[in-house]
């Protein structure tokens, strides 16, 4: 994971992304503008922070389907605190983060302590959090206005919003946490073989709960970014976010079976998804075309990344070999 290896590890996905940018650049004239990259940078913070959290969840071999709903709920709470209770922004933001934390912690505790699949617990939380979001806001979008838009507004001179910078910071911090700390080492060990890790004298339950709680906090942060971009809070926010986040993480090469992953590559996954969406919109592609292209690119990105590590003896030999005896990581 050092020196050249780092670079080669990130290279494949970077190239996929660059290829997409180039392609869309040729397809629609104004794609290569600073403004265009600004728009891209502005839209990804919520997905980025959620995907960072999801990377950790997948690494311990869990899954969290509730992130979309929890983002909706945290955003709803933020809106109510700001508009109905007239709280100042920092307190309201803390409350939103706390809401996310509580939801994530609950999912984690129930699944870890009761030994239930996190898939089903978080599926339950998906429904519950969405219901609560509707309850909190009475199913109404709340207009909040400029008071909350600061985070999403590009800083003059830099062209990037504070939200983007924070999201980027979370990627860097996440990668460090994963690869350079004892906690990160434990997460990888747990995801690889929980029984062996436990017998090595490492407490495995608490780290797992912490990961779900962290996922919750990051989702809360995502909600703040989302609300500040919309200038309004919307109880439907985040619908389907879980799939985009998981897709970004898996495109980034993190295994759904746990034990292996990279936060930086997750970020490339996010970039690929976001660029694809923007590029297709710019090109004005019709809905069916958008769908089909998105599907193909998602599969292709993972395929290219999967081949990166097996890149020996030429492309064709490789292809042949893998058509004969593929491995299977569902």
């Amino acid at each position, binding site marked *: 994971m050092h020196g050249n290896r780092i670079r080669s590890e990130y290279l494949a996905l970077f190239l996929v992304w660059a290829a997409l940018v180039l392609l869309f650049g040729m397809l629609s004239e104004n794609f290569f503008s600073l403004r265009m990259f600004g728009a891209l940078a502005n839209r990804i913070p919520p997905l980025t922070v959620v995907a960072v959290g999801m990377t950790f969840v997948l690494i311990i071999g869990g899954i969290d389907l509730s992130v979309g709903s929890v983002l909706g709920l945290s955003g709803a709470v933020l809106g109510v605190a700001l508009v109905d209770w007239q709280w100042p922004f920092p307190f309201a933001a803390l409350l939103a983060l706390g809401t996310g934390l509580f939801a994530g912690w609950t999912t984690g505790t129930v699944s870890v302590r009761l030994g239930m699949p996190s898939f089903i617990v978080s599926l339950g939380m998906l429904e519950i959090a969405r219901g609560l979001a509707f309850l909190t806001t009475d199913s109404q979008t709340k207009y909040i206005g400029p008071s909350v838009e600061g985070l999403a507004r590009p800083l003059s001179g830099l062209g990037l919003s504070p939200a983007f910078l924070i999201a980027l910071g979370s990627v860097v911090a996440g990668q460090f946490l994963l690869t350079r700390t004892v906690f990160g080492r434990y997460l990888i*060990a747990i995801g690889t073989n929980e029984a062996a890790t*436990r*017998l090595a004298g490492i407490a495995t339950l608490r780290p797992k709960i912490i990961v779900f709680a962290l996922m919750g906090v990051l989702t809360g942060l995502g909600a703040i970014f989302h609300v500040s971009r919309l200038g309004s809070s919307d109880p439907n926010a985040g619908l389907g976010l879980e799939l985009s986040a998981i897709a970004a993480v898996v495109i980034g090469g993190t295994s759904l079976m746990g034990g292996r992953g990279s936060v930086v590559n997750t970020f490339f996954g996010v970039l690929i998804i976001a660029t694809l969406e923007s590029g297709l919109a710019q090109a004005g592609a019709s809905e069916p075309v958008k769908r089909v292209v998105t599907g193909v690119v998602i599969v292709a990105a993972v395929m290219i990344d999967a081949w990166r590590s097996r890149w020996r003896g030429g492309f064709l030999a490789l292809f042949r070999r893998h058509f004969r005896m593929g491995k299977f990581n569902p």
Partner: protein
Amino acid sequence: MEAVAPIPHLQARRIGKAYAAPVLVDFDFDLAPGEVHALVGSNGAGKSTFAHILAGLVQPDSGTVLLDGRPHAPRTLADAQARGVVLVQQELNLLPTLSVAENLFLDCLPQRFGAVQFAALHAQARVAMQRVGLGWLDVTAPAGALGVGQRQMVEIARALTRQCSVLILDEPTAALTEPEIARLFENIRQLQTGGVGVIYVSHRMDDIRRIADRVTVVRDGRRVTTRAAGTATVDQLVGEMVGHALPPRAARGSVGALGAVALEVSDLVAGDRVRGASFSVQEGEILGLAGLIGSGRTETLRAIFGADPVTGGGVRLRDSGQTRPLQRFPSPAAAVAQGLGLVPEDRTHDGLLLPLSIRVNATLATVPAQAGRLGWLERSRELVAAEQACNRLAVRRDSVEQAVSALSGGNQQKVVIARWLARDCSVLLFDEPTRGIDVSAKETIYAILRALVAEGRALVVVSSDLAELMTLCDRIAVMSAGRIAAEFTPDAWSEEAITRAAFSGYLYDSTDAR
């Protein structure tokens, strides 16, 4: 098979195989029909690799194999089986969710129109298990409920049901106790008379003396010698394996000054296998735990360590000069925090993080110790620690960044042991610590264990190899049916006495007879 095939039956010539480093070099090997040909060598010498080549799991880089005069270059396990070459692998491969019977006959389930004929299957399975002396085993139970030794027997039984002309046994006895071994040898002799050639890989010199006709010694992937088994002494063989004569074994240190009781286990009850085990071990002492397969030794260690829930009794631990009150550990983490350590029996499932590097595996129990402030990993310190740990046990490796899954069985075992040696534990529990470890490395490990007790630590060693226990231990406790049936000091023990004690718990309670 009755017809006497022209000699030799199997002929391997100039086999070469290399991964990062060469594993087999110009390796020659012959097997005659009805012969038991033992293959010995230190850990990582290339024995399993050769077995895998014959069985179609690995393809050689160079060389040829002739089987009954025809080239034998199987690409899959099924290819090899079609030619009658059957392998019992060193690492166990049963499917825990399937029944014993289904595991035995998975690739040839009796069927009609695609539907499994369960009655026929179970009948066949019972016959197969009878053959290895485990007729009482419930063949409809999931294989996951079996312990390592029983799983090993199922694997052997599975191989014995196949039509074979060459049977390869890779470390079959590492987890077996004497009764099973005797039964296995009986089966091998039967096959022999049927003209089947057996390749027998083992680190147990005793086995080789008893069953082998010829022995080939392999060192660093090269054949050193092949000779009739009777003509070599163990010391000669070992010398050839390691390339130099072993220093004379340090006599079992006379029992030194023992300290206070470091670990006292009282009336421990856990699951339905541990039914009130009580024993204690003192500082500076190695206690051996002997017993039959399934007598509950593994479960006792796990229960002490907090790995399984304890339902009765508990342990008293001496920690920094204080004896703590009777307690039950809620988790291994709690036990480790008080100075316990456990080397588990099943290294692949309970010991190793297979896809990860030797460095990560060897330092897993000591990560915080090597980390800097705030839990920051210090890579250089980790590397040093991992190198040290590997050197201490002579782990054969290309680098510590190599995945442990690429290590030979014995070297994997050494990594698990190394992990705990790096930690300052006052009481260490070893479950079959030398499973799959070669003779010279065993000596190294014995020396290390001796050094540990000399520092005043207390060790508990479970082993199915009685000779090993009798070499190593200061005292042997014998488990039978989940309790300690007897304890022996060196002056009082004998194989016969220990074996008698091991059976004692089952004599009155025939329902438990296993």
